[in-house]
């Protein structure tokens, strides 16, 4: 029996309306297939599977799907989130300015150790650029978080950004597990008491065993 995964990471996409959050999740074409039925009821979340260091990682990804328009993104949405993609549109100054507000919102509602990354999306539209790459980088440095310019349309840096964020979450969790292990005097201990639950389904082992 093959185990389904080694890690499960819950990720959120945050940012103003129209910055291309949803498009970031279309890997092979710039638009969703026009399924009238599905677009009417809407997508709740997506599952993606990636591999990092030989470990199978499931990403469960939520897109605010328009809720951001009403500023109704609160604690319920952030619950359990381990990684957040902050997305702005490089052709839209306002969406960039609002990244600071989104970070404030995250600090208010999300777990303090949630891993964050800023994406300057639509970098294929350089002729309409309103925010320089340098300003994006500067903002990221200011908050001590990672930054990439992406183009969902040209499939540029999107896949990479999910790997980078996932790698950050994984190192954070692995570090946490190590600390817990040393705190418990080397005894094996299941990490089932924190928000960032590491689900090693099938492996079924404690913290000690999951670090292959």
């Amino acid at each position, binding site marked *: 029996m093959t185990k389904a995964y080694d890690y499960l990471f819950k990720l959120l996409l945050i940012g103003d309306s129209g910055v291309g959050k949803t498009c970031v999740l279309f*890997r092979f074409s710039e638009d969703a297939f026009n*399924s009238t039925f599905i677009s009417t009821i809407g997508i709740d979340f997506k599952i*993606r599977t990636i591999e990092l260091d030989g470990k199978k990682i499931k990403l469960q990804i939520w897109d*605010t799907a328009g809720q951001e328009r009403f500023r109704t993104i609160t604690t319920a949405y952030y619950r359990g989130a381990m990684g957040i993609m902050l997305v702005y549109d490089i052709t839209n100054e306002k969406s960039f300015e609002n990244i600071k507000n989104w970070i404030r919102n995250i600090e208010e509602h999300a777990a303090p150790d949630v891993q964050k990354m800023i994406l300057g999306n639509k970098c294929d539209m350089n002729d309409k650029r309103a925010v320089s790459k340098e300003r994006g980088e500067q903002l990221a440095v200011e908050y001590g978080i990672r930054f990439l310019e992406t183009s969902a349309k040209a499939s540029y840096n999107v896949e990479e950004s999910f790997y980078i964020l996932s790698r950050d979450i994984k190192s954070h969790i692995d570090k946490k597990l190590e600390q817990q292990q040393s705190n418990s005097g080397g005894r094996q201990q299941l990490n089932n008491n924190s928000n960032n639950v590491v689900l090693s389904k099938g492996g079924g082992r404690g913290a000690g065993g999951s670090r292959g």
Partner: protein
Amino acid sequence: MKESDVKNVPGGGAEVTGGHESLPAPAAVDEDKDGANFPESTAEPAEISDSVLDGKNMWALNCIFCPSKIMPAKVASYHVEERALPKMKQKKALSEGLEVEPLSRWFMVSDVMMFDNIGVSNAVGDIKYLTCADCEMGPVGWTDLSNKKCYIALARVRET
């Protein structure tokens, strides 16, 4: 049925919301078997020996419309049950009635985490629909919220 309800789509929430309750869940089908020409589906094969091995999916299952891999081979159990799934392309407005297609061959997994890539819709009654994670083509199947089991329609995937 209020027509405006159907258009009023809330996003993101996991809860069942009022606007969708009028949409029927895939119910057991006992009539209306004119499932002959549905261009968005591959026809359900008469023989399943090319698809099923030891009760599991012999091949990886992929989206029909894009290269997205839905699940690897040998993960899901073959399951026969006649159910109606909404058509991917609805020709009329949903308020005029949901167009469905009766399907009977499914691959079942016990948990949504068994998929490599999948999209999960907002709840419609006590089910959610499954779509391609990459192009959102669908529904390719559905999941029963009461027991978490997920069903992929053999007719709506590409086997490789």
